[in-house]
């Protein structure tokens, strides 16, 4: 049997160095996860709003989509129905394919009619604080349901000081948090700011527990709906106007 000759020491040393270098380089080429993971989760977002009359407001929209990370793909639902629990009357949600979808902002692909339709479906002006609403969405063979109760309107009082304005409100039934006049999410029922001129209008929004929980928990992906990611929430906004040379305001 032929005996194998071993390579000279110098060659073995060089081979070892090359192998070590290759191993070191290879360890730097580690397998990394993609920057954006792929997902195709269904999502439904509906936030009911009641706003003081007489103010310009954007259309009330909803989203039925797929989280095709990083973008969002709108989906057309087979069924998109919302009813008032107390009397079972339906609301007039319509598909709005023309609404924009962007990378930084999504306006929604369903919009609620502003008022009662000719066929008797309720509009946005029928959303009432304190009422309960049920949602049913069927899309791509999945059924998504949810219920929400709109908070009552908080009653505002404005106390005008020499340098400060104080807005006080009583806790509203069904509200878990509020947007203060400064836009901050809070559980307080008082807000103090610098005194403003007459005509200044202060706004406070009562937020239902499902929306409040979703806003407070950055990792939460679902609140108020079952069967998909998303949110079914409600909020009610009231305002008070600062009167000239007075110690108060009027709603």
């Amino acid at each position: 049997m032929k005996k194998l000759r071993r390579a000279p020491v110098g060659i073995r040393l060089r081979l070892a160095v090359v192998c070590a270098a290759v191993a070191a380089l290879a360890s730097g080429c580690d397998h990394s996860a993609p920057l954006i993971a792929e997902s195709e989760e269904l999502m439904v977002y509906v936030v009911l709003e009641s706003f003081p009359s007489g103010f310009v407001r954007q259309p009330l929209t909803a989203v039925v989509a797929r989280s095709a990370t990083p973008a969002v793909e709108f989906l057309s639902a087979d069924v998109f129905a919302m009813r008032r629990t107390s009397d079972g009357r339906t609301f007039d949600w319509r598909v709005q394919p023309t609404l924009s979808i962007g990378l930084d902002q999504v306006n929604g692909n369903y919009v609620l009619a502003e008022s009662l339709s000719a066929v008797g479906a309720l509009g946005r002006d029928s959303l009432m604080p304190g009422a309960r609403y049920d949602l049913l969405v069927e899309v791509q063979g999945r059924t998504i349901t949810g219920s929400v109760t709109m908070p009552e309107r908080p009653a505002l009082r404005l106390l005008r000081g020499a340098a400060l304005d104080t807005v006080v409100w009583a806790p509203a039934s069904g509200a878990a948090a509020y947007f203060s006049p400064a836009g901050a999410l809070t559980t307080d029922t008082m807000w103090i700011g610098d005194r403003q001129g007459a005509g200044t209008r202060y706004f406070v929004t009562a937020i239902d527990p499902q929306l409040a929980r979703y806003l407070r928990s950055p990792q939460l992906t679902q609140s108020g709906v079952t069967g998909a990611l998303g949110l079914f929430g409600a909020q009610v906004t009231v305002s008070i106007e600062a009167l000239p040379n007075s110690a108060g305001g009027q709603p």
Partner: protein
Amino acid sequence: MTQPWRRKSSYVCVATASLLPLCAASAQPSAVVRGCVSSATGNAVINATVSVRGVLLQTRTSDIGCFAIALPVGEWQLVVRKFGYRPVEVVARSVREGQDALAVVMETATTELGRLVVNGEVLAPFTTTVTPTALRQVPALGERDPFRALPFLPGVAQPNDILGRLHLAGGASDEHGITLNGHPLQAPFHINSVMGAFNPASLDRVEVVMHHLPVARFDRVSGTIDLHTRDAAGSAAREAQLTVLSASGTVLQPHVVGNTDVLATGRASYLDAVLKRLSLDEGSDDLRVPSFRDALVAARTQWSPRWESEVLLFHTQDWWFASGSRDAEPPTWGENLLGVRVGYGQGPWSGGARVSVNRATVAQRTIVNDVETGQVLQGGGRSAGSASIDDRTTSLIDMNQRWISAQLNAQYQRPRWGVASAIGVDARNHDNSWLGVDATERLLNELPPAGRYVATQLVGNVSLEGTTVTERRAVRSTVGVRASSVGGAVYLAPRASISAPVTSNITLSVGLDRRFQFDAIAAEPIEGSLTQPVFFPVLPRSSDVAAFSAAWRPHEASENARSQISAAIFGKRNRDRPVLPFASVADNTPPPAPPIGPPSPWSPPFTFVDGFAVGATLGFDIAFTSGWLLQGSYTWQRSQDARDGVMRPTPWDAPHQLTGLLSVPLGRQWQFTVASQFRSGPAVTPIALTVLVPFNQSYFPRYIPGEPLTARAPAFFRADIGVQRTWVVRRATWVVSAQAINALASENGVRYSGVSAASCSGRPRGCANNGGTGGLPFLPSVGIEVRW
């Protein structure tokens, strides 16, 4: 988390015992060898290093170029070195009587001047030095900046393109110290930490020490960057520079008063004021550009051949112009240092004392920021009527970080052994408060919207180090220990190193260190952030470091070319590194946020994790007398921490880094330089899911983070080019330079993450900049300087 290593007195005994045999070799008769060093043109060469081959002794030439060194009787080989000159070796006979003074003539070495890296000599293994001449050669980011040149060194990384902070040997950006003539600094950076606050004209050299720290140095787990000012001894010198950003002037004047030499330098930005004025003339107040100034004065006095002292003042200040609002004071930040050093040297004894008083501040006050629109954001951000106040725009920063540091040191040096000891104290007092979203964005996103941190720390330290060099092969070894005391606990940090010349031009070095660090910032700063609030964690972090390096200078004796190749391997075991929990939400999560209260006491909720860093570096350069210079480095390193039970890369972990610098003479005093950097992208957290958040009657994307630090940002590449011409007119040297940073307009993301990737997804090229996460764009600049 591990317990601190306390009262390991056995290490002190080992260190002390290792020095005892050295004492036996000190009883030889000696004599003083004297000499003078001059250039080929006959001028005295001051501050040249005169070392004795094979032993520890060395000295420097005086302001008339002469030296004296006590050597045992016999024949010795002296090596005379100075940057810009070719090393000279002379044989000296140390005899008791009738000895003539040596006359040493040094020739200018153009090959040395332009080199960015000058590896440490045998007496300072693991030390890398950058010369200001080299700094002038690297294409500048508007201003010549030592911190922008250091990433060209092996083992030094700068993962963020527009953040001047560095990472040494796989460490975090807060794990190395910065000193100026031995005095500690806190955050010497301008323009939201984009560039350093030092005028290269005032610097003699920048030393980077990362693989082995002498025990008397500031204890930092990743090393130190030591800046040394120019020595005014000798002849007077003056410099003035004008760049697109600033104007500066430097004066070195020997013997201003008696034997006091003075270095004074100052720099102030002007482009900001010009643009501001233009902007105001157009009625616009939107244009905001940075303003900065810095100044340095050093007065060094030679009281006698034995005593010298130095008083140093350093000042840096940055600010943004006001936005025009009466209630708004824009951010200002800066640092002031008063340092005093006294040195003594007599025969084998030398010593000194240092006192440093340092204060870093940040201030900002913005009460009302929404006066322009007069709108109040409420109820999810609706516009609602007339003027009001949005108190979420209130922003207050009031940071005050004081640091008093003092040290006494003494050395006793014999030809073949020496002992050095030091005792010091560092007293720090921090009173930092911040309030508002804008404040935290300017400081650090990880801070709460309102907080106050008031703390005092007192660290005492004692160090002892022994050094010996063998007679036969000149193997130099050191053993030392540094004991630090904080809050009643004692932390011992033993260190050792061995440096052995294998041949006349190959040197091998090994270092073993334990290091401690007693402060921390809350997280890695992002670009645009100000001076960071520094905290004192309940546990110090520590690092056990092992390093091996080899330096080869194949053309040491060549007259036409000089070259050197260096390689190093290092491994660090880190313990108790303070980190914050991983963010549960991506940084672009839309409002609303809870209301902000007044600043209340807050300390970072640190968890303490263990980890490691390993790496290998290779650096080379070759320079020719004709003016050609080619220099490059490659660094492979990994840095990982055990977090949540999993070993994960650190946010600055970038496995590969390759740099290159080529300088070519074009003739007629023109010089062309191209510098390039390539590195892997750092580890980032991917996006696992996109959901929506209702806000302002729309829906905004909310990115849900995936497994932390499991993805990697795209790789980085940048090439800078520069050209400069030098004239000599009436004994004044004029240099005009033009440079283009990112000459190929590479789109390098900074703070790259799943969020930025998601924001850019589907967008055309250029998204990185549009998304606000881009690195440096193509940036041309020009400059002129005159030296006389």
